């Protein structure tokens, strides 16, 4: 606390420093002490900024969304709002789920290849390419999904409908433009792939050599070693990566807005229909008069998305911490 080289010490520091027999142990003339303080203050500020920003966002969303669930003349209309919001929530979750189901195995596979199988030079270049995927703006993905991937998937949807229409997911008349929630999910999968891959790669590389060698010395093949040492070690990291990807997939606006031709909630993934919260907001906001009930409604579903994302993140934390004592951190 006490530092002699700091002119404006806080009141507590002064009181200790002015004790007559302040021993030499108490006063430090090391210049590092000042730096230490500056740094800890900066770190504290940074942390607080995040919390404050988050609080303001939540406050703004809450304050501006009351119009969606309360009308002057009729009182509370929560039921109406729920009716409006739930198809969008389900649509958002479906699109994100498709993206994760498609992207996670590929991402883990690519990350493993880079970290444990590829020769060093090749693994570097693959890593760059994957990172490049993350650098493509989402509007480009949207355009690609709308004008190329969608039409390309039309015959696939026709095939799925012909042979698998007994599954509700593939019933309904297949879209002729390919601009369906499944296409949107595939585009999202490509978009979240680099996030999950790079998180997994980082964590796979950090697997302690000791544990890998322990498995190998027991007579494990490379794949067995990966299952025995790498995956358990990386479990929390994989989950974090997937959740980061999920966060992006849930919130992705541009690509979904361009790819999807929105419609009512339907179980079919291959016909037109469904929408997601970000797409709904993006499409509806320019047309909503400021201060109107419609705008409040859009802000309210924004709040819903915020809460979903919060729940996703907290669930991820919970999953990660559940097996703490087996994590190897002790």
């Amino acid at each position: 606390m006490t530092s002699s080289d700091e002119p404006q010490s806080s009141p507590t520091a002064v009181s200790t420093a002015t004790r007559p027999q302040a021993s030499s142990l108490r006063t430090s003339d090391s210049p590092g002490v000042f730096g230490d303080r500056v740094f800890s203050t900066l770190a504290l500020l940074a942390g607080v900024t995040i919390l404050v920003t988050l609080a303001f966002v939540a406050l703004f969303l809450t304050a501006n969304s009351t119009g969606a669930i309360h009308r002057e003349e009729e009182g509370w209309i929560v039921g109406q709002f729920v009716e409006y919001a739930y198809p969008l929530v389900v649509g958002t979750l479906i699109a994100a789920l498709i993206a994760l189901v498609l992207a996670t195995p590929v991402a883990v596979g690519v990350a493993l290849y880079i970290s444990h199988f590829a020769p060093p030079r090749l693994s570097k270049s693959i890593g760059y390419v994957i990172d490049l995927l993350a650098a493509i703006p989402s509007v480009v993905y949207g355009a690609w999904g709308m004008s190329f991937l969608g039409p390309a998937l039309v015959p696939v949807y026709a095939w799925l409908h012909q042979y698998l229409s007994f599954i509700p997911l593939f019933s309904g008349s297949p879209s002729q433009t390919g601009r369906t929630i499944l296409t949107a999910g595939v585009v999202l999968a490509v978009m979240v792939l680099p996030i999950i891959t790079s998180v997994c790669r980082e964590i796979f590389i950090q697997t302690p050599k000791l544990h890998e060698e322990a498995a190998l010395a027991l007579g494990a093949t490379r794949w067995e070693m990966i299952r025995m040492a790498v995956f358990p070690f990386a479990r929390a990291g994989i989950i974090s990566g997937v959740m980061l990807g999920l966060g992006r997939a849930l919130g992705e606006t541009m690509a979904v807005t361009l790819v999807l031709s929105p419609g009512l909630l339907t179980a079919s993934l291959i016909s037109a229909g469904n929408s997601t919260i970000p797409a709904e907001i993006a499409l509806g906001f320019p047309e909503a008069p400021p201060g109107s009930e419609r705008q409040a409604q859009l802000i309210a579903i924004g709040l819903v998305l915020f809460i979903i994302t919060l729940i996703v993140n907290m669930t991820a934390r919970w999953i990660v911490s559940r097996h703490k004592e087996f994590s190897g951190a002790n």
Partner: protein
Amino acid sequence: MSKSITAKDLNVYYGDFLAVEGVNIEIAARSVTAFIGPSGCGKTTFLRSLNRMHEVLPGARVEGELLLDDDNIYAPGVDPVTVRTMVGMVFQRPNPFPTMSIRENVLAGYKLNGARLSRSRADEIVEEALRGANLWNEVKDRLDNPGSGLSGGQQQRLCIARTVAVKPDVILMDEPCSALDPISTLAIEDLIGELKQDYTIVIVTHNMQQAARVSEKTAFFNIAGTGKPGKMIEYDDTHVIFNNPSNEQTERYVSGKFG
């Protein structure tokens, strides 16, 4: 179960760098052999070539013959995975699998072989291996706790139990006590004395008293200088190496004049 080891003109490389040169050694079954020598002299490298763990590092390779009884483990077509199931290894730092319980750690080797074990058979294996590693009494009430929660010495004995559980022919130990306190070290040394009745044990140690205490035969490795390959200088009965070595380098090393 136990097998002898014979190395014939074994050269061990890291890429183009010759790390250990021309080792010829015969290690009898059911014995304890210690490798001593200064740091960087290639004893650990040589030890790791005995179960083909050396080649796990990129570019690492081995020339020459290494016979386990009569089978050359470096013959073409030999699967290193099979070799490692026959030659177990205990590492310098205890490395139980952190995500596994004590019980799962002991059974880890069995799981690899894909063996479907009945609950009671698995219990038997766990108890036998843990008793074999003198750990049973300390952990029998908490077999489902994580292995990483044990003390360092207990963890190392757990690693020995894990190695013993799959009944290898040879156990290699790479400075198994260097991260442990004297009491735990004593426990491991006692254990080595018991294990040699069933296994061929090769131990690398920096502690010459330990080599003298546990081993029947000792090999002294040395290196002529940085960048030069390590060599096995002398190999003889332990009491000869420590009391009456024939080579001057050995004499200087064991008497503490260098290293």
